[in-house]
């Protein structure tokens, strides 16, 4: 971009001026740039990942041998509850949607921001506040200790009079607001802000995965929110939903929770599938095999995922007909996943794959996902589920899915998009070393858990006696946990070092096929000086179209230079039929998030009237925020 003719340079400078945000801390507080918000999501969820990791290491150290007393039962139970809650709500989901989705979706669509940039900022600040809210409980000695799925009656006041379950319930309601807002934002963006010509059949598979994940988030969060509201009403206001004596039922909690909880698994893995379908074509240097089937499979997984919740409850004594229905649905959800796995594998086989670090992580992802998937199928065999549920066999299964199948693509994606985000290359040799360390650490941590489970080891025990045959496997798991940690630290060190000293990357070091590679690294605040025109499924490989986009910049077409603007298009065909005025930086999202935090804190401490007043103030702040129109 150094040899631009003067008119182009002027146009770019004009865009730079229009889209520039305040410098410094104030700039980060008021930013509405999806890339900066994506980075905020990234680093915040990474910090929670570290917290959840430390909790896991304490758990594993305690369980390294029988009858250990590194921590007592209360501390252990708080740690295991916080580990699950953190990893799911404060790490994987915000990482997949909030960081990867936020940063990449507009870039892949050829858009300049998400559809609602200020709402996006609010999402982030709520996410941060809700995470700190939940962790406050741990630090004031009232940490949630009822397990991450918080079964009643254990979580009722009668059995848990501390504030722990309240921190958990209110914190997760709060957190759900963030995920809901992000999901609305992503779906609307994918529907309305695609570059001209990017009809739905040319939508990158990454965005299909994000669309499926965000769409299912909108359906799966309400059952959780309701469940948590019912819990708080019962705990704080004496309502009756879960106690048998007053006509309630403890099963109500479980149904609502798993109605959320199982689709949540797909919310966790779908963004990872999206990362995988981005990495594989790039390094196999060819288009995806059976791409329409993969897109369909991504949507189907999200859909069928809503019909399988009760397989988490096979041992509760449900009627046989219900058992069989949910088992059959569980078998069905396997098929979209196998389609994707074979599509990935045959894409690699058809192409001439270059096994660089991102592809290595994806390969490991496939192996781990298959292991976790196969043990998952076993849980649809009802009698086997009824035997192994709530043992370490389940712990092994879902860690292969959540760590192996969700976190590995995220790690691969961190390497893959590192040059795009920073403009520099990571160190390939160290990256490969860290991959093998992480891979072997993961296998050693989680594989022996299958065996411990078959030997009858229950999950969530803070200690266990000698003589049940569990000792060796637990020791191996603990050693694996530390190897895994070393691998993760090495990854972090590589990326930090490369950020400072890495070789310049250029706009497209891997020759990626999607639009984020068509702009500079890192992208400018407006992403694209000229809104690209899309004529194929892999616009990054369409040299003719890219050349034409450059020509249009020279002629000053499609740069939308009069304000924060960009085209809005029709949903199916992406015909641009309107010009959207996008909002600029604002302090209101932070203000609303602060007021909402205060409201939740007051609710927690049972100051309901004050909480209502603060909610009113938050409403006023929201009205003030909406008063100024973007075009003004």
């Amino acid at each position, binding site marked *: 971009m150094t040899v631009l003719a003067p008119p182009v340079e002027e146009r770019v400078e004009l865009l730079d001026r229009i889209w520039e945000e305040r410098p410094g801390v104030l700039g980060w507080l008021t930013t509405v740039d999806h890339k900066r918000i994506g980075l905020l999501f990234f680093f915040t969820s990474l910090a929670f990942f570290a917290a959840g990791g430390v909790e896991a290491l304490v758990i594993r150290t305690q369980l390294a041998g029988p009858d250990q007393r590194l921590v007592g039962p209360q501390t252990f139970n708080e740690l295991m509850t916080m580990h699950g809650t953190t990893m799911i709500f404060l790490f994987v989901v915000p990482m997949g949607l909030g960081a990867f989705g936020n940063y990449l979706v507009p870039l892949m669509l050829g858009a300049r921001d998400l559809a609602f940039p200020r709402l996006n900022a609010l999402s982030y600040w709520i996410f941060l506040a809700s995470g700190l809210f939940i962790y406050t409980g741990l630090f004031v000695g009232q940490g949630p200790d009822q397990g991450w799925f918080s079964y009643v009656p254990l979580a009722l006041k009668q059995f848990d009079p501390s504030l722990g379950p309240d921190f958990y319930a209110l914190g997760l309601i709060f957190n759900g607001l963030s995920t809901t807002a992000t999901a609305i934002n992503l779906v609307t963006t994918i529907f309305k802000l695609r570059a001209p010509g990017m009809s739905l059949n040319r939508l990158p598979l990454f965005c299909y995965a994000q669309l499926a994940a965000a769409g299912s988030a909108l359906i799966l969060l309400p059952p959780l929110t309701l469940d948590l509201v019912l819990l708080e009403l019962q705990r704080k206001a004496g309502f009756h939903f879960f106690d048998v004596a007053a006509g309630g039922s403890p099963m109500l909690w479980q149904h609502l929770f798993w109605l959320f909880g199982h689709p949540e698994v797909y919310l966790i893995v779908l963004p990872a599938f999206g990362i995988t379908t981005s990495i594989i074509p790039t390094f196999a240097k060819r288009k995806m095999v059976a791409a329409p089937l993969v897109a369909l499979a991504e949507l189907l997984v999200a859909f069928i995922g809503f019909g399988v919740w009760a397989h988490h409850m096979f041992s509760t004594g449900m009627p046989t007909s219900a058992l069989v229905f949910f088992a059959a649905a569980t078998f069905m959800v396997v098929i979209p996943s196998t389609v994707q796995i074979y599509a990935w594998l045959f894409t690699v086989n058809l192409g001439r794959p270059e096994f660089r670090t991102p592809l290595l992580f994806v390969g490991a992802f496939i192996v781990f996902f298959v292991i976790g998937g196969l043990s998952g199928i076993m849980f649809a065999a009802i009698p086997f589920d009824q035997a192994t549920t709530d043992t370490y066999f389940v712990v092994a299964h879902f860690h292969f899915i959540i760590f192996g199948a969700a976190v590995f693509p995220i790690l691969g994606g961190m390497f893959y998009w590192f040059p795009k985000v920073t403009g520099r290359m990571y160190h390939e040799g160290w990256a490969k070393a860290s991959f093998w360390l992480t891979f072997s650490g993961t296998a050693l941590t989680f594989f022996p858990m299958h065996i411990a489970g078959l030997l009858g080891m229950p999950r969530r025990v803070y200690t266990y006696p000698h003589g049940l045959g569990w000792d060796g496997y637990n020791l191996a798991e603990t050693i694996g946990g530390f190897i895994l940690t070393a691998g993760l630290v090495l990854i972090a060190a590589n990326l930090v070092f490369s950020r400072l000293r890495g070789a310049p990357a250029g706009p497209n070091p891997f020759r990626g096929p999607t639009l984020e590679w068509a702009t500079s690294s890192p992208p400018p605040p407006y992403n694209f000086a000229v809104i690209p025109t899309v004529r194929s499924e892999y616009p990054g490989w369409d040299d003719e179209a890219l050349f034409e986009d450059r020509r249009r910049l020279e002629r000053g077409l499609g740069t939308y230079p009069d304000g924060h603007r960009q085209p809005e298009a029709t949903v199916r065909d992406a015909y641009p*039929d309107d010009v959207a005025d996008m909002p600029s930086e604002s302090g209101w999202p932070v203000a609303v998030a602060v007021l909402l935090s205060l409201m939740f804190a007051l609710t927690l401490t049972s100051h309901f009237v004050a909480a209502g007043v603060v909610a009113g103030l938050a409403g006023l702040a929201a009205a003030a925020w909406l008063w100024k129109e973007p075009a003004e």
Partner: protein
Amino acid sequence: MNVFAVPARRSRARGWWGMALFAATEATLFGTIFGTYVYLRFKAVHWPPDGIASPSITIPLVLTGVLLATSAPMQLASAAARSGRARRAQALLLLALVVQAGYFAMQLQRYADDVQAHPPQLSAYTSITQLMVGADHFHVFVGLLLNLFLLAKLMDGRVTAYRRTGVQAAALYWHVVNALTVVVVLLQLSPSL
């Protein structure tokens, strides 16, 4: 270079889609509330439990009919905003708002009395019923604020793209809330029907 023919009619703005998705997630929330009501109901032997009278039918049904009717002025306001007629949109919004506010005031009065007579702490029946009805009233209240906000925005007699989308989104919100209210009322009255 205009390879993309502009369609004759502008498609729905992103603001409308945002509201549609929000309404979808709210409708799901109500769906789970309805599911909870039905679940608890079929677990119980007596619904309502002994000692609690079945709800009366006439007034709630009439009120719901009145609320439902406000979908018409909301839809007309949306059309007026679409064609740029600010004053007409304002008048229709005001009409809807007056009726909705009257509805809300009466319902709030009735709700307060009912909570007094059948506190939610009594049983699962009162808990879920009061929660469901209260959640519905709260959504009506939010809709009132939305209409007030739009009326204020339209004071200067101009329709901008932002306001047009706002009115369309508000109309959609009210349609969804009104539809949900019908289900809420039918469930609430179901022991007497």
